[in-house]
């Protein structure tokens, strides 16, 4: 009782009330807490960005970041005139676009379906099994993909009765990448949708049932509208990583023969920067990739803001 009284006696000052100094002093504990993430972000995210300048310089390790010569946009123009430039852009965009196209609706459909399951035990087992693959590392997943697709005794070839080496077929690469991605992460994606669905007021369902709404009508008019805002949020999140297709997985599944579809910017940056030690060039390519990504993120966020007002960030 006395605790609630003291809390009422010293209310947290309202934002916008009093001078800035007074507000800072009144809520100094909150600002002290905020200081930790802000300082960490500045130290680990913003300060290292001064290294981006080597994208505009001819970086020599002996002369350092600051001492190397300025070359302007030379690295960028070299990238734009690289023979594989068009192919890389196309592959990066298509790979992430198709991943989003197939990978985005599947968790929603799964969640809507599993929400209708009435046997609690079966529901729990299904959910646990579905998100188990999420915890397997990319390296192991790629090993599994190789075993399953192996031309001699791989499961897929045995079922189809063929002996195709899928990893050397450039036409199969996107399907392999996206299907295995869905297999791994769809179960993890449904968690947030299931949580939203379980919070829906059951009286809505009862009222709909009394009014004679069928199962599909209940899903269409109760479940989906409740999920819309979280769906838009997830879409913005995935748009943030649209140009960053998982480097590891593409690199591990890439063979010389499927490069026509598996050559993406992230792998190119690694090959040029680490394997060939062209630091300035790979920094320029990476910077270009990031700039495109930011533009896409802002565009998707603007579009999403029109759909639902409360989920726009910028």
């Amino acid at each position, binding site marked *: 009782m006395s605790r609630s009284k003291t809390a009422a006696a010293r209310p947290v000052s309202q934002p916008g009330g009093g001078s800035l100094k007074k507000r800072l002093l009144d809520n100094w504990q909150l600002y002290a807490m905020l200081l930790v993430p802000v300082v960490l972000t500045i130290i680990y995210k913003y300060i290292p960005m001064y290294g981006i300048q080597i994208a505009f310089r001819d970086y020599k390790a002996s002369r350092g970041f600051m001492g190397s010569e300025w070359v302007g946009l030379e690295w960028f123009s070299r990238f734009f005139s690289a023979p594989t430039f068009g192919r890389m852009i196309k592959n990066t965009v298509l790979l992430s676009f198709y991943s989003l196209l197939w990978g985005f609706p599947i968790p929603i459909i*799964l969640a809507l379906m599993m929400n209708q399951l009435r046997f609690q035990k079966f529901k729990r087992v*299904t959910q646990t099994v579905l998100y188990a693959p999420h915890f397997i590392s990319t390296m192991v997943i790629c090993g*599994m993909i190789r075993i399953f697709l192996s031309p001699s005794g791989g499961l897929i070839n045995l079922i189809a009765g063929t002996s195709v080496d899928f990893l050397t077929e450039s036409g199969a690469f996107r399907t392999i990448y996206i299907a295995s991605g869905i297999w791994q992460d769809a179960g993890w994606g449904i968690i947030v949708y299931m949580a939203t669905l379980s919070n829906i007021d059951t009286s809505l369902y009862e009222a709909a049932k*009394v009014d004679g709404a069928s199962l599909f009508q209940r899903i269409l008019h109760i479940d989906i509208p409740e999920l819309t805002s979280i769906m838009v949020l997830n879409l913005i999140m995935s748009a943030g990583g649209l140009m960053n297709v998982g480097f590891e997985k593409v690199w591990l599944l890439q063979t010389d023969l499927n490069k026509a579809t598996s050559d993406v910017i992230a792998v190119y940056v690694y090959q040029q920067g680490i394997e060939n030690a062209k630091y300035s060039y790979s920094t320029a390519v990476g910077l270009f990739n990031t700039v495109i990504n930011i533009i896409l993120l802002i565009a998707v966020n603007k579009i999403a803001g029109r759909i639902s007002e409360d989920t726009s960030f910028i």
Partner: protein
Amino acid sequence: MKANTKSGKLTGLSEKSSDIILVVICTIILFIVAYPLYYVLIASVSNPYDVYAGKTFLLPSQFTLDGIT
């Protein structure tokens, strides 16, 4: 009770049959997700030559712990 039969008429499906369809679909999905995991488990305790030849499906063939120890 009345509400139930009414909704059944509208979908053309009773609550029970839609339950059965859902369980069947979920079981298929469960199998698709779980089988590769199970396969890795049995492949790890099988004779590697049998795994390469595609002879390991449901049970480990020529059980061995060589791959683990």
